[in-house]
């Protein structure tokens, strides 16, 4: 397994909620990453942001890891949930809140 894949695998498996994004939760560097950050912050879900801009091998590696061509990418309990569109769609349908609850992850706000 390549380094990048190992790093990604480790992040995905050792954090309940991981967002591979451009920038950081405090300073998203892309509108789409920013949208997912807003959703997660609104729900008050604890998560780890991984800034793919800091490491090109991670930026490319994550796309191979999930067979998904874009950033951001949200993972919950080791499973790829989706990018910005899917996360927003699930949030609007209340499915994202349900997913977190099902996986035993505390959600403060159930919009």
């Amino acid at each position, binding site marked *: 397994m390549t380094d990048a894949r190992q790093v990604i695998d480790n992040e995905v498996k050792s954090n309940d909620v991981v967002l591979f994004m451009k920038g950081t939760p405090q300073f998203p560097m892309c509108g789409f990453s920013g949208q997912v950050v807003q959703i997660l912050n609104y729900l008050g879900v604890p998560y780890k942001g991984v800034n793919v801009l800091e490491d090109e091998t991670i930026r490319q590696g994550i*796309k191979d890891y999930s*067979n*998904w*061509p874009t950033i951001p990418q949200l993972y919950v309990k080791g499973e790829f949930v989706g990018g910005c569109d899917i996360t927003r769609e699930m949030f609007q349908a209340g499915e994202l809140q349900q997913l977190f609850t099902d996986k035993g992850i505390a959600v403060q706000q159930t919009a």
Partner: protein
Amino acid sequence: MPMDARDIETMIKAALPDAQVEIKDLAGDGDHYAATVTSPAFKGKSRVQQHQMVYAALQGRMGGALHALALTTQAPDN
């Protein structure tokens, strides 16, 4: 090299012949589109799988020539 809306539609329909494709140009720069794709082929598939089918149809352009494609996929209601 940005993409043209018609190219996107043609590529999606080449891979999903029975798909209905609606494309909106979000920014007029050939780089930011919204697309709604409806196809029976999506039936029983998760959202991630549906989107991956569309990305496969675009043969690697997604995230490259095509920076942003706000995608909505659905199976027809009937």
